[in-house]
């Protein structure tokens, strides 16, 4: 495929994946629930990346899967890739969306049978916290976010101009 400057190319970034590019693609994560979408952008060089994060912390898992799955590893992996493409850390800014709590079930137990909500009930919030913490550690400013609540979101990130839009069934489309 040619590097389409006329045809908008949309890259679907699925659950536990991330994608970094210096081409004018639109990166999209559809139907984020408890998952969190983190967009990183270097406006000067028009390099961007989007991660569709599922879990907060790779270190809490005995046999972690690929880096795209966790907030700590996905964000770091994207920054490294952006730097390889010529980005400078100090020029990278972040936006994030998602981390909702879709269901609340009274009395549901978490996997360790401790009292309190099941893992999935609070995972959105923990994903958001972990992403925020990782960005802080890397010194990347979080310039906008649309997180929490009880509804799903689709996140679109246009790498040609850095625009991020969030759409949801409940609240329509808005720019972040």
């Amino acid at each position: 495929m040619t590097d389409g400057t006329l045809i908008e190319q949309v890259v679907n970034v699925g659950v536990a994946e991330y994608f970094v590019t210096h081409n004018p693609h639109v990166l999209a994560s559809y139907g984020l629930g408890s998952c969190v979408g983190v967009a990183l952008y270097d406006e000067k060089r028009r390099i961007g990346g989007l991660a569709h994060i599922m879990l907060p912390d790779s270190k809490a898992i005995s046999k972690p899967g690929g880096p795209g799955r966790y907030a700590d590893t996905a964000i770091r992996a994207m920054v490294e890739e952006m730097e390889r493409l010529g980005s400078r850390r100090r020029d990278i800014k972040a936006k994030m969306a998602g981390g909702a709590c879709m269901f609340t079930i009274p009395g549901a137990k978490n996997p360790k049978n401790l009292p309190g909500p099941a893992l999935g009930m609070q995972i959105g919030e923990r994903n958001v916290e972990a992403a925020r913490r990782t960005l802080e550690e890397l010194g990347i400013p979080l310039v906008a976010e649309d997180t929490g609540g009880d509804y799903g979101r689709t996140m679109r990130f246009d790498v040609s101009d850095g625009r991020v839009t969030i759409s949801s069934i409940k609240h329509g489309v808005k720019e972040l």
Partner: protein
Amino acid sequence: MAERRGLTPLQLDALREVGNIGSGNAAVALSAMVDKKVMLSVPRASLVPLVKVSDLVGGAETPVVGIYLHISGDASGSMLLLLEENSARELARLMVSGEGQGELSTIEQSALQETGSILAGNYLNALSQMTGILLKPSVPGFAMDMAGAIIDFILVEISQSEDYVLVIETEFDVMQHKIRGHLILFPDLGSLDIILGRLGVSAD
């Protein structure tokens, strides 16, 4: 992609039979509730990559109603009743008188939640009787939103580190009412050995 846990054709057959027996029992209950004939598809049992799970129900942005139950007991997992919006409305209407478009009323929501609970209860009961494994459903949670958003936290619960989830899925159809839905059982991969063992198709 990380390593994939293989399942033999014999094991997949046994898991499909789980879907058959569970959803057969659930369909009888549904049929009794709405007093209509209910048709079932042949169940699918497969290891599905995480990124593909929402494709099972028409894509991540498809608006659906999801009724979710957490399973605990001798084995754990999740059970999900998924209905497209129109099917959900139609089904609610068969049980309580509702009208119009837009948001479902509280009563319609409870009716659907109750349906999910009864279907899951019957499904898991049949499964417990067949295998001797105790499976207890939680109270049902309700959400009306994009399919991807409804499914993603279930993936979190059942797959902390694998790139695949095991999905046992049956489609059902309430005759003459354009009601179609999916009844999906997601066993935790950690519980899979227990289930396969009881079915007599262990790995070794």
